[in-house]
């Protein structure tokens, strides 16, 4: 489930508020968005993928909220790791163009 909206990284673009299909976030005037309805999170990772500054972290646990420490995740290279693998963001190539894709999906 969504666990972190980084205060230090979030630029208040509120894109996550828009793209979350289950409306988990609430916009807050003059501040970063809040995780208002964590129980509605379906762990689809889409908010994290769309965040342009890697300010979000979705823990892989779908059934329960787990404590996630931002600095620890950062040091393990996990924050922003999905967006990097998908190849979204400046200077990156979408993974869909990866030469190994030529071999097919399986």
């Amino acid at each position, binding site marked *: 489930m969504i666990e972190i909206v980084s205060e230090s990284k979030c630029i208040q673009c509120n894109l996550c508020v828009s793209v979350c*299909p289950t*409306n988990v976030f609430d916009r807050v005037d003059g501040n970063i968005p809040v995780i208002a309805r964590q129980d509605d999170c*379906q762990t689809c990772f889409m908010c994290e993928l769309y965040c342009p500054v890697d300010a979000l972290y979705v823990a*892989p646990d779908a059934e329960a909220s787990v404590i996630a420490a931002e600095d620890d995740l950062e040091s393990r290279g996990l924050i922003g790791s*999905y967006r990097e693998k998908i190849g979204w963001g400046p200077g990156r190539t979408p993974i869909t*163009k990866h030469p190994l*894709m*030529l071999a097919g*999906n*399986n």
Partner: protein
Amino acid sequence: MGIEQSQAAVSLEADVLVIGGGPSGVWAALSAANEGARVVLADKGFCGSSGATAPSGTGVWYVQPDAQLRYEAKMSRYEMGGRLAEDSWMNRVLDKAFERMHNLADWGYPFPVDETGKQVVRGLQGPEYMKLMRKLALKAKVKILDHSPALELLADDHGVGGARGVRTQSGEPWEVRAGAVVIATGGCAFLSKALGCNVLTGDGYLLAAEAGAEMSGMEFSNAYAISPSFSSVTKTAYYRYASFYYEDGTIVEGAGSQRGRSVIARNLLQGRQVYARLDQAPEDIIPRLRVGQTNFFLPFDRHGIDPFKDLFPVTLRLEGTVRGTGGIHIVDENCATIVPGLYAAGDAATRELICGGFTGGGSHNAAWAMSSGSFSGRGAAEYALALGVNATNRNLRGLSSTPLVDRGAASHAAKTAERVQEIKDVTHPYDRNLFRTESVLDDSLNRLDALWKDIRETPVARDGQAYKARESAAMTATTRWMYHSAKRRTETRGMHKRVDYPALDAGQRFRLISSGLDDIKVRTAKVAEEVVLV
């Protein structure tokens, strides 16, 4: 009763309204716009991230137009599907999906290129695919309403004429009057947290049924996907490389991804945890697997698990009619329903026509979304544009079967949560849905009758949370069509497993058409083609 005046903050007129913004909905919108129709697309979440496709990678039933290859493709699920697919539909879908995949290449999907610099059409990565689809819709001047669940359809004596709902983020009512409506709301996975599926609660089935539409094949609604037990990632393709173990490291005999899911389910039912490890994957293909389905590895990487070397606990998550094949009954090549002006596309429509009673998951559903979206969008546009002057000044009324009352009325949020739990309790358990018997189906149906009666009598306030109460109504109605159909089909065919009738009965090669809200009716219908693919 006179013409209801719209109180909606967002009040629009269109030729075609598409409800649902996954792939089939956007293909419908694009196809309708291509016919010159004014199109509005309303999604419960966000068109681009909503639904089962966006967060996934998906294969596509994309087959070169070569007679032998096409024949093999059509036969691949024909027997497993209980001979309920139809040759003519499979041909149409293969043709249209092939065309659409090349459209995607031309319109900007970043397919890989071979050594000659030529684009090679492959399976689709959901995030990239749906980001492009949204862009294409906006470019085609489709008006997109995000976070705008439909609460009810509008209709008059001539047929369907739009829908209305409440926007979840602003609480504003919305209303769209349209000559035709395409239901593209996906299937129903009963809030099981299968990847991207929690928005798929059968909403469109209920909307369609309230207008008088029928369902088909709702007994094919017990698809379950393997996932790590802690995770939402229900991508099962790679489990073909898995071995399954008990906690002590001994192998679970007969367990497997394709035909051995029942073995896993029976162990889980007995309280025995099953573990998996992808130890049958040859070392040299691992890099290719990692690229092919990035999201499959995400939960493992974040937990420090190497799925090729480490055991991890697995579960089976209900995917209902998302990977099942039941859905709204369509009656012509435009994916029309029996209700004038109402069309169905994607997982909201039955997929028996191309995969019978076997799963539509992995490639078939993706091809179906492209093709049924295209057929329905075009059909809806032609219908709406032919209405001409009759399209305006219609005396439309709301069709909700649950009373919708003004906002500010008593909130029933706690009651809705209770109902959702009851729905999960009658749909998720393997011994109720995966393995079916008459006595348990009867027990579930009794509980569902009580639930439906309760829902039917409880008013829903038109506020930003109203859609949740309507979801519980939709899931309840969906389960009643499922279990009535499952009870009627006294055999085992496709994914429908009757423990008390474990064999296929050649005399039951027919479709089951279910309908009704308070009283559920199930009738048989002939499969259109007697002889297929001789």
